[in-house]
């Protein structure tokens, strides 16, 4: 069979691949959600110097940062059932998807815990002192004063992790999960137009990444609103309204006629 690049396949495959987007996003959401909970739990013993737990969390972070995700997926998918068998728990009927979410969640958790730890350390020591001086307990000081500020510091790094996670979901196909990359594999195999399939796949990943980036930027602005000195123009998904045009309309006295304007 003669092979020729056919752009039509790219258009044709985009919607087909999008049909599995929900699964990809489910993995991202599940893994990041798990990662956030684990990350926070793992960061705490190191921040508060809890003896044994601190060493354990260090081992955990080292392992998940120091080994490839692909290997982690294999180890968990093939290894975990064997270990659990020893204590008579049968997980062979558990869908692969759960293994994928758990493994990616643990992977994300390692990075998120380091992000949180760094951000908490970055919050000025004076903030805790002020909280104590006001009469707060350690718990109140952490949840009401430290954590909100640490989150604002952590969002940019966290955004990176979310986007990296989106791309790492593509590894789930190696365990036979039919998410976007898995779907692309089978579409390509069917038509032998691999190049077109992967091109449409790349386009989808890129667009989703950009959308995620925009959404996370809005979250970042929201969490960091106390760091700005001015009151910024309102913008939607980071798209700033065109300032020169606004000035022009003002100079032309257009707003005398009660033109609705959307000042924040």
């Amino acid at each position: 069979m003669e092979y020729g690049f056919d752009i039509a396949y790219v258009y044709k495959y985009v919607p087909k691949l999008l049909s599995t987007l929900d699964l990809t996003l489910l993995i991202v959401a599940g893994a990041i959600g798990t990662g956030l909970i684990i990350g926070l739990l793992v960061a705490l013993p190191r921040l508060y110097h809890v003896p044994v737990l601190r060493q354990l969390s260090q081992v955990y972070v080292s392992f998940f940062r120091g080994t490839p995700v692909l290997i982690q997926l294999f180890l968990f998918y093939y290894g975990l059932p064997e270990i659990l068998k020893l204590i008579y728990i049968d997980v062979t009927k558990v869908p692969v998807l759960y293994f994928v979410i758990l493994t990616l969640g643990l992977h994300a958790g390692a990075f998120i815990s380091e992000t949180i730890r760094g951000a908490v350390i970055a919050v000025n020591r004076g903030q805790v002192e002020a909280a104590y001086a006001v009469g707060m307990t350690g718990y109140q000081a952490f949840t009401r004063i430290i954590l909100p500020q640490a989150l604002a510091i952590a969002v940019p790094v966290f955004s990176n992790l979310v986007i990296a996670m989106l791309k790492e979901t593509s590894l789930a196909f190696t365990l036979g999960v039919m998410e976007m990359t898995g779907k692309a594999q089978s579409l390509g195999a069917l038509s032998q137009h691999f190049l077109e399939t992967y091109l449409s796949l790349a386009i989808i990943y890129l667009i989703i990444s950009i959308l995620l980036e925009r959404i996370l930027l809005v979250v970042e602005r929201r969490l960091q609103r106390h760091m700005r000195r001015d009151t910024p123009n309102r913008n939607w998904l980071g798209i700033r309204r065109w300032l020169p045009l606004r000035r022009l309309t003002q100079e032309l006295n257009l707003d005398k006629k009660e033109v609705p304007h959307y000042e924040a």
Partner: protein
Amino acid sequence: MIKLRGIRKSFGRQEVLQGIDLTVEKGEVVAILGPSGSGKTTLLRCINYLEKPSDGTIHISDFSLDCKHAGKKEIHALRQRSAMVFQQYNLFNHKTALENVMEGLVIVKKLSKDEARKRGIQLLEKVGLGAKLDSYPSQLSGGQQQRVGIARALALEPEVILFDEPTSALDPELVGEVLAVIRRIAKEGITMIIVTHEMGFAQDVANHVVFMDGGVIVEEGPPSELFVNPKEERTKQFLKRYTPEFSYSI
């Protein structure tokens, strides 16, 4: 009334507080003076346990705490009896001026939000910031931030307000507005302990002045005595640098 007895504190081998005894009557304004490294800030921070004293007892009105056997609960109880104004303001950065004042009222004093808001607005107006309720600390000048800090401390209605060099981080033009606020609340009979380098202010506002050096109280007394007629050689030497032979004011 606040009574400190035998307060000691060491950092490593160096003993920065060597047994401090200090009594502050209710409604009194006490100024603590001394060169840097004399232990005055450490002493202040020991009173609300931001620094853990290694020995001694702290009494605030009916509550007393033995520093050697203080548990979490007692430390928490001690802290609720005082409030602090910091050199670096330390306002909660992610909260507006009003929220900064409300925070302690809602979380610690368990007031309803409406009550806290009312009280917060009232106090911010008192320190001259009625127009800045919704500004974040980053949008305020140093002087304004420190006045929010004072309002936050006042809101808690503590037995004593501790001021840790409240004007040292301000540029000279802003010092006045903060001192004016402190002076005003001093007249209301709130007990205050102020660590400061503003000699003129201390002389003017304080009822009692304490001079510290090398981790001990060298001399204390009413400002009229300590400033005009210091007994100890070290006090004289220190004050000479601040109060020149002749004054330039008109």
